Protein backbone atom coordinates (compact mmCIF):
# COMPACT_ATOMS: atom_id res chain seq x y z
CA UNK A 1 0.00 0.00 0.00
CA UNK A 2 1.26 3.44 -0.90
CA UNK A 3 0.58 6.51 1.21
CA UNK A 4 0.84 10.01 -0.25
CA UNK A 5 1.28 13.00 2.04
CA UNK A 6 0.31 16.33 0.52
CA UNK A 7 2.70 19.16 1.34
CA UNK A 8 1.17 22.65 1.30
CA UNK A 9 3.15 25.80 2.04
CA UNK A 10 2.80 25.89 5.82
CA UNK A 11 2.20 22.18 6.44
CA UNK A 12 4.12 21.12 9.53
CA UNK A 13 2.93 17.59 10.34
CA UNK A 14 3.93 16.17 6.98
CA UNK A 15 7.18 14.76 8.31
CA UNK A 16 5.47 13.32 11.39
CA UNK A 17 3.01 11.46 9.17
CA UNK A 18 5.83 10.27 6.90
CA UNK A 19 7.80 8.95 9.84
CA UNK A 20 4.77 7.29 11.47
CA UNK A 21 4.02 5.31 8.32
CA UNK A 22 7.69 4.37 7.82
CA UNK A 23 8.14 3.27 11.43
CA UNK A 24 4.92 1.28 11.50
CA UNK A 25 6.16 -0.51 8.35
CA UNK A 26 2.68 -0.52 6.86
CA UNK A 27 3.56 0.57 3.35
CA UNK A 28 5.44 2.92 1.08
CA UNK A 29 5.13 6.62 1.59
CA UNK A 30 5.88 9.69 -0.50
CA UNK A 31 5.31 13.42 -0.39
CA UNK A 32 3.00 15.09 -2.91
CA UNK A 33 3.64 18.78 -3.61
CA UNK A 34 0.49 20.94 -3.58
CA UNK A 35 1.42 22.59 -6.86
CA UNK A 36 1.44 19.29 -8.75
CA UNK A 37 -1.66 17.50 -9.85
CA UNK A 38 -0.37 13.90 -9.85
CA UNK A 39 -1.21 11.69 -6.89
CA UNK A 40 1.70 9.41 -7.82
CA UNK A 41 -0.43 6.27 -7.85
CA UNK A 42 -0.94 6.44 -4.09
CA UNK A 43 -3.69 4.35 -2.47
CA UNK A 44 -4.19 6.59 0.54
CA UNK A 45 -3.91 10.39 0.57
CA UNK A 46 -3.13 12.20 3.79
CA UNK A 47 -3.73 15.93 4.18
CA UNK A 48 -1.48 16.75 7.13
CA UNK A 49 -1.73 19.30 9.90
CA UNK A 50 -0.14 22.71 9.83
CA UNK A 51 -1.01 26.22 8.77
CA UNK A 52 -1.43 25.96 5.03
CA UNK A 53 -1.17 29.40 3.43
CA UNK A 54 -0.71 30.90 6.88
CA UNK A 55 -4.35 30.12 7.76
CA UNK A 56 -5.16 33.34 5.88
CA UNK A 57 -8.86 34.10 5.44
CA UNK A 58 -10.01 30.87 7.15
CA UNK A 59 -8.08 27.68 7.94
CA UNK A 60 -7.97 25.55 4.81
CA UNK A 61 -9.87 28.08 2.67
CA UNK A 62 -7.00 28.77 0.28
CA UNK A 63 -5.38 25.33 0.30
CA UNK A 64 -8.56 23.80 -1.08
CA UNK A 65 -7.89 25.60 -4.38
CA UNK A 66 -4.36 24.16 -4.74
CA UNK A 67 -3.81 22.29 -8.01
CA UNK A 68 -3.46 18.97 -6.19
CA UNK A 69 -6.84 19.37 -4.49
CA UNK A 70 -8.61 18.94 -7.82
CA UNK A 71 -7.00 15.51 -8.08
CA UNK A 72 -7.76 14.72 -4.43
CA UNK A 73 -11.43 15.62 -5.00
CA UNK A 74 -11.63 13.36 -8.04
CA UNK A 75 -9.81 10.57 -6.19
CA UNK A 76 -12.17 10.86 -3.19
CA UNK A 77 -15.28 10.90 -5.38
CA UNK A 78 -14.14 7.66 -7.01
CA UNK A 79 -13.87 6.04 -3.58
CA UNK A 80 -10.18 6.71 -2.88
CA UNK A 81 -9.12 6.77 0.76
CA UNK A 82 -8.42 10.26 2.13
CA UNK A 83 -7.48 11.25 5.69
CA UNK A 84 -7.38 14.88 6.81
CA UNK A 85 -5.70 15.58 10.13
CA UNK A 86 -6.20 18.94 11.85
CA UNK A 87 -5.54 21.52 9.10
CA UNK A 88 -6.17 18.63 6.69
CA UNK A 89 -9.63 18.21 8.23
CA UNK A 90 -10.25 21.95 7.84
CA UNK A 91 -9.27 21.68 4.16
CA UNK A 92 -11.70 18.76 3.65
CA UNK A 93 -14.50 20.86 5.18
CA UNK A 94 -13.67 23.88 3.02
CA UNK A 95 -13.51 21.63 -0.05
CA UNK A 96 -16.94 20.22 0.73
CA UNK A 97 -15.74 16.62 1.00
CA UNK A 98 -17.03 16.63 4.56
CA UNK A 99 -19.96 18.65 5.93
CA UNK A 100 -19.72 21.48 8.46
CA UNK A 101 -17.18 24.16 9.32
CA UNK A 102 -14.66 25.07 12.00
CA UNK A 103 -14.94 28.09 14.25
CA UNK A 104 -12.38 29.53 16.62
CA UNK A 105 -11.96 27.53 19.80
CA UNK A 106 -14.44 28.50 22.48
CA UNK A 107 -11.67 29.80 24.77
CA UNK A 108 -10.05 31.67 21.83
CA UNK A 109 -6.73 30.01 22.65
CA UNK A 110 -4.52 27.67 20.71
CA UNK A 111 -5.02 24.37 22.53
CA UNK A 112 -2.09 21.96 22.58
CA UNK A 113 -2.50 18.96 24.88
CA UNK A 114 -3.27 15.26 25.06
CA UNK A 115 -6.95 14.36 24.89
CA UNK A 116 -8.91 11.10 24.88
CA UNK A 117 -11.13 9.92 22.08
CA UNK A 118 -14.11 7.63 22.14
CA UNK A 119 -14.35 5.66 18.92
CA UNK A 120 -18.05 5.73 18.06
CA UNK A 121 -17.86 3.65 14.89
CA UNK A 122 -15.41 0.77 14.64
CA UNK A 123 -16.77 -0.66 11.39
CA UNK A 124 -14.88 1.76 9.18
CA UNK A 125 -11.69 1.18 7.21
CA UNK A 126 -10.13 3.80 9.48
CA UNK A 127 -11.11 2.29 12.81
CA UNK A 128 -11.53 -1.49 12.54
CA UNK A 129 -8.31 -2.15 14.48
CA UNK A 130 -9.30 0.15 17.36
CA UNK A 131 -9.82 -1.69 20.64
CA UNK A 132 -13.37 -1.50 21.93
CA UNK A 133 -12.57 -1.24 25.61
CA UNK A 134 -10.17 1.70 25.74
CA UNK A 135 -10.15 5.34 24.77
CA UNK A 136 -7.49 6.58 22.42
CA UNK A 137 -4.97 9.06 23.74
CA UNK A 138 -3.47 11.53 21.30
CA UNK A 139 -2.62 15.23 21.15
CA UNK A 140 -4.63 18.11 19.71
CA UNK A 141 -2.91 21.31 18.58
CA UNK A 142 -5.20 23.87 16.98
CA UNK A 143 -6.99 27.18 17.43
CA UNK A 144 -9.89 26.46 15.08
CA UNK A 145 -11.29 23.07 16.02
CA UNK A 146 -14.69 24.13 17.22
CA UNK A 147 -16.81 22.01 14.87
CA UNK A 148 -20.12 23.41 13.70
CA UNK A 149 -22.85 22.10 11.43
CA UNK A 150 -26.54 22.92 11.26
CA UNK A 151 -29.06 20.81 13.13
CA UNK A 152 -30.10 18.78 10.07
CA UNK A 153 -26.48 17.85 9.32
CA UNK A 154 -25.79 16.85 12.92
CA UNK A 155 -28.90 14.65 12.87
CA UNK A 156 -27.83 13.04 9.61
CA UNK A 157 -24.30 12.43 10.90
CA UNK A 158 -25.68 10.87 14.08
CA UNK A 159 -28.27 8.68 12.38
CA UNK A 160 -25.80 7.37 9.83
CA UNK A 161 -23.14 6.71 12.49
CA UNK A 162 -20.68 9.10 10.85
CA UNK A 163 -19.48 10.84 13.99
CA UNK A 164 -16.39 8.66 14.32
CA UNK A 165 -14.54 10.25 17.25
CA UNK A 166 -15.74 12.28 20.22
CA UNK A 167 -13.63 13.94 22.90
CA UNK A 168 -14.02 12.12 26.21
CA UNK A 169 -12.26 11.91 29.56
CA UNK A 170 -9.95 9.08 30.58
CA UNK A 171 -12.96 7.02 31.69
CA UNK A 172 -14.78 7.57 28.41
CA UNK A 173 -17.30 10.14 29.66
CA UNK A 174 -18.31 12.60 26.99
CA UNK A 175 -18.79 15.91 28.77
CA UNK A 176 -17.97 19.59 28.63
CA UNK A 177 -14.78 19.23 30.68
CA UNK A 178 -13.38 16.78 28.12
CA UNK A 179 -14.14 19.09 25.21
CA UNK A 180 -11.00 21.11 24.36
CA UNK A 181 -12.55 23.59 21.92
CA UNK A 182 -16.33 23.85 22.26
CA UNK A 183 -16.99 21.50 19.34
CA UNK A 184 -20.68 20.57 18.94
CA UNK A 185 -21.47 17.29 20.71
CA UNK A 186 -17.73 16.86 21.43
CA UNK A 187 -17.18 15.98 17.78
CA UNK A 188 -13.51 15.31 17.02
CA UNK A 189 -13.77 13.42 13.74
CA UNK A 190 -16.32 12.56 11.06
CA UNK A 191 -16.48 10.44 7.92
CA UNK A 192 -18.28 11.01 4.62
CA UNK A 193 -21.38 9.10 3.54
CA UNK A 194 -19.41 6.59 1.50
CA UNK A 195 -16.94 5.89 4.31
CA UNK A 196 -13.75 6.71 2.38
CA UNK A 197 -12.97 10.25 3.59
CA UNK A 198 -12.10 10.84 7.25
CA UNK A 199 -11.37 14.13 8.97
CA UNK A 200 -10.19 14.49 12.57
CA UNK A 201 -8.68 17.28 14.64
CA UNK A 202 -6.42 15.15 16.93
CA UNK A 203 -3.05 13.99 15.63
CA UNK A 204 -2.69 10.20 15.31
CA UNK A 205 0.67 10.65 13.56
CA UNK A 206 2.06 12.27 16.70
CA UNK A 207 0.99 9.30 18.81
CA UNK A 208 2.57 6.27 17.16
CA UNK A 209 5.41 5.52 19.58
CA UNK A 210 5.47 5.34 23.36
CA UNK A 211 8.32 7.83 23.70
CA UNK A 212 5.77 10.44 22.56
CA UNK A 213 3.37 9.48 25.35
CA UNK A 214 1.02 7.27 23.37
CA UNK A 215 0.99 4.86 20.49
CA UNK A 216 -2.79 4.80 20.06
CA UNK A 217 -2.54 6.64 16.76
CA UNK A 218 -1.18 3.49 15.14
CA UNK A 219 -4.65 1.86 15.29
CA UNK A 220 -5.86 4.30 12.69
CA UNK A 221 -2.96 3.78 10.29
CA UNK A 222 -2.95 -0.01 10.80
CA UNK A 223 -6.68 -0.12 10.12
CA UNK A 224 -6.22 1.73 6.84
CA UNK A 225 -3.26 -0.46 5.88
CA UNK A 226 -5.44 -3.56 6.03
CA UNK A 227 -6.75 -2.43 2.67
Amino acid at each position, binding site marked *: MKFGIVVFPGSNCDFDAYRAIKDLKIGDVQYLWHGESSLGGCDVIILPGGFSYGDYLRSG*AIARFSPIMKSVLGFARKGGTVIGVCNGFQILL*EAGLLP*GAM*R*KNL*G*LRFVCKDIYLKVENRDLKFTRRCPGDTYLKMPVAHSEG*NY*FADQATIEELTETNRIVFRYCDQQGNINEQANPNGSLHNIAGIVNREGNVLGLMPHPERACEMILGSSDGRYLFESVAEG
Partner: protein
Amino acid sequence: MTKYRAKIEVKFKPGVLDPQGETIKNALVNLNYRQIEAISTGKLFWIDLEAKSAKEARESVREMADKLLANPVIENFEVEINK
Protein backbone atom coordinates in the same frame (compact mmCIF):
# COMPACT_ATOMS: atom_id res chain seq x y z
CA MET B 1 -14.74 49.68 -18.61
CA THR B 2 -15.26 51.57 -15.39
CA LYS B 3 -13.33 51.29 -12.16
CA TYR B 4 -15.35 50.23 -9.15
CA ARG B 5 -14.60 49.64 -5.51
CA ALA B 6 -16.54 46.79 -3.95
CA LYS B 7 -16.99 46.46 -0.24
CA ILE B 8 -17.79 42.97 1.03
CA GLU B 9 -18.96 42.45 4.57
CA VAL B 10 -18.76 38.88 5.86
CA LYS B 11 -20.52 38.02 9.10
CA PHE B 12 -21.59 34.97 11.03
CA LYS B 13 -25.04 33.62 10.31
CA PRO B 14 -27.54 34.10 13.12
CA GLY B 15 -27.20 31.28 15.62
CA VAL B 16 -23.52 30.59 14.91
CA LEU B 17 -21.49 31.09 18.05
CA ASP B 18 -18.99 33.93 17.77
CA PRO B 19 -16.47 33.41 20.61
CA GLN B 20 -14.55 36.62 19.77
CA GLY B 21 -17.72 38.72 19.84
CA GLU B 22 -18.69 37.22 23.20
CA THR B 23 -15.26 37.94 24.69
CA ILE B 24 -15.20 41.53 23.41
CA LYS B 25 -18.71 42.08 24.75
CA ASN B 26 -17.67 40.82 28.20
CA ALA B 27 -14.66 43.15 28.15
CA LEU B 28 -16.80 46.19 27.28
CA VAL B 29 -19.40 45.28 29.89
CA ASN B 30 -16.53 45.11 32.40
CA LEU B 31 -15.62 48.65 31.29
CA ASN B 32 -19.11 49.60 32.43
CA TYR B 33 -20.82 49.79 29.03
CA ARG B 34 -23.74 47.91 30.43
CA GLN B 35 -26.13 49.00 27.70
CA ILE B 36 -24.54 46.51 25.25
CA GLU B 37 -26.86 43.73 24.20
CA ALA B 38 -24.74 41.90 21.65
CA ILE B 39 -21.49 42.14 19.70
CA SER B 40 -20.63 40.20 16.62
CA THR B 41 -17.39 40.17 14.66
CA GLY B 42 -16.87 39.83 10.95
CA LYS B 43 -14.55 40.59 8.07
CA LEU B 44 -14.41 43.45 5.60
CA PHE B 45 -12.87 43.24 2.15
CA TRP B 46 -12.37 45.99 -0.40
CA ILE B 47 -11.87 44.89 -3.98
CA ASP B 48 -10.90 47.34 -6.72
CA LEU B 49 -11.94 46.06 -10.11
CA GLU B 50 -12.95 47.02 -13.60
CA ALA B 51 -16.34 46.15 -15.02
CA LYS B 52 -18.71 47.26 -17.76
CA SER B 53 -21.39 48.23 -15.26
CA ALA B 54 -22.11 48.28 -11.56
CA LYS B 55 -24.34 45.27 -12.13
CA GLU B 56 -21.51 43.28 -13.69
CA ALA B 57 -19.15 44.31 -10.88
CA ARG B 58 -21.68 43.20 -8.30
CA GLU B 59 -22.21 39.85 -10.00
CA SER B 60 -18.52 39.01 -10.20
CA VAL B 61 -17.86 40.10 -6.62
CA ARG B 62 -20.79 38.02 -5.36
CA GLU B 63 -19.31 35.03 -7.14
CA MET B 64 -15.92 35.65 -5.48
CA ALA B 65 -17.55 35.92 -2.07
CA ASP B 66 -19.53 32.74 -2.63
CA LYS B 67 -16.48 30.80 -3.75
CA LEU B 68 -13.84 32.02 -1.36
CA LEU B 69 -14.39 35.06 0.85
CA ALA B 70 -17.25 33.59 2.88
CA ASN B 71 -17.91 30.07 4.08
CA PRO B 72 -21.63 29.54 3.40
CA VAL B 73 -21.89 26.99 6.21
CA ILE B 74 -21.34 29.62 8.89
CA GLU B 75 -21.21 33.02 7.19
CA ASN B 76 -23.38 35.46 5.22
CA PHE B 77 -22.11 38.35 3.14
CA GLU B 78 -23.27 41.70 1.78
CA VAL B 79 -21.82 43.50 -1.21
CA GLU B 80 -21.73 47.27 -1.80
CA ILE B 81 -20.49 48.69 -5.11
CA ASN B 82 -19.07 52.22 -5.40
CA LYS B 83 -17.40 54.10 -8.24
